[in-house]
């Protein structure tokens, strides 16, 4: 399965990436190269092998349920382009 330009346009839209025409072209080519490699890997016999979720032979460490963070809102909001009443402001979104 090869990706078409329109697939890449759609993916770029879903990820909110503003790609120009040339970038869409080059992204299509490089993503297709990745897919070619995946296609080649399909030839490997994986019968009886469990899907790999993570290459590390370890399991997730857990954290005790204790509050360790304190309020640093002012510091964080100093970096934000727009804030009001403690809220981060973003361009209007209507669902």
């Amino acid at each position: 399965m090869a990706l078409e330009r329109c697939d890449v346009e759609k993916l770029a839209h879903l990820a909110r990436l503003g790609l120009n025409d040339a970038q869409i072209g080059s992204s299509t080519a490089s993503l297709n190269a990745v897919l070619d490699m995946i296609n080649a890997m399909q030839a490997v016999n994986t019968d009886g092998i469990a899907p790999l979720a993570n290459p590390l032979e370890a399991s997730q460490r857990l954290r005790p349920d204790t509050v360790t963070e304190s309020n640093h809102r002012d510091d964080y909001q100093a970096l934000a382009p727009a804030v009001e009443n403690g809220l981060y402001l973003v361009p209007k979104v209507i669902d």
Partner: protein
Amino acid sequence: MQWETVIGLEIHAQLATNTKIFSGSSTTFGAEPNTQASLIDLAMPGTLPVLNEEAVRMACMFGLAVDAHIAEHNIFARKNYFYPDLPKGYQTSQMDDPIVGLGHLDIALEDGSIKRVGITRAHLEEDAGKSLHEDFSGMTGIDLNRAGTPLLEIVSEPELSNAKEAVAYAKAIHTLVRYLNICDGNMAEGSFRCDCNVSVRPKGQTTLGTRTEIKNVNSFRFIERSINHEIQRQIELIEDGGKVTQETRLYDPNKDETRSMRSKEEANDYRYFPCPDLLPVHIPRDMLENLRTQLPELPTQKRERFEAAFGLSTYDASVLSASREMADYFEVVEKICQDAKLATNWVMGELSSLLNKENLDISQSPVSAEHLGGMLLRIKDNTISGKIAKMVFEAMAAGEGDADQIIEQRGLKQVTDSGAIEAMLDEVLAANAEQVEQYRVSDENKRGKMFGFFVGQAMRASKGKANPQQVNELLKQKLDQ
């Protein structure tokens, strides 16, 4: 055409942890905006999630309670979508290997029958923040305090066949998560919310019709109304020659209708993949066995015990076991008065209507279980009648003390001295000599109503304190003389 409905529910239960699922930020409700949003919750580059062990424990407790398969490993995945209240650009959730696998829950229906509903899975995920669309000079305000709050998404099999069943199932899950102390169940604060998947098909057809999903319904009443509305809308649409589109809809309680939110086709392209920031989560078998021993008596077990031990109907038993607090209250009352039927009647009758009227939870009841049990004892030993008991109950609700104090202070002790009752009855009959004559010459079928008149007069004369059974018996004797 005859239609049948297929409903499945996705319930989001907010887990009652102190901190978020992947960070040490507090989850306390109602804090000032963004004061509980740390660098991890804000998705700052370079931060990494660390899983909260309490969220894992709570999910396992739920899995054990619904008899589900809990695999040795579960895996977190990224669900990608773009929305400003989701700072990472993806929600950390679970896809192929959820923590809780196939299980089931038995629910009691209104007709007293029991239905077993399959639970497909339950998985851990993080909640998003909140968007505030009030006017901030044409901008949207974002509060990320809720971002990263742990949720357990509980997915049922599409096995519910009408809105009432869906509500019964949602209530049973609500009861269960509160029994387990893993969710506070506060629907107004969004701790327990429901997505309803609804489809219709001609009766007898085995394949499923196209479904729509009603998002974020936050009360049981709205679950019922939105599903009924959606069933009607789909049937009318199909009968008019139209086709149901798979989409997400929102329920508007003011207009009692659902409307389309967005085309699911595009939004559904979530491009899940395993989250590289989180390793597979190992659930040791001995931990599960240890948790199993910590399970409380579950609602179904309690209901069955109430039916067997107290001879209650399935309906009464399921109402009384609807919450742990209610069940505990009932058991204290029953233990004191040693009469399950009487305790059931009072808890489900007078007490429930008092709580409803005052809009109180049973844990805030102005009448304690000890006081109610004590009062029922006084009914049983004939100190007061059922009618006087209602007065005593009101006085207890008003904080005038326990039943014995109120009976003493107000002189409500029932008169059981038959001599005194007879003397009182003689006076009543003498004052109503004409009616007595009429009674004596009337035929049997008219006497019932007339007899009631004398009972009423006698009870009034005694200010309700005469023992009603004795009044009945003695009055009968006197009139038949």
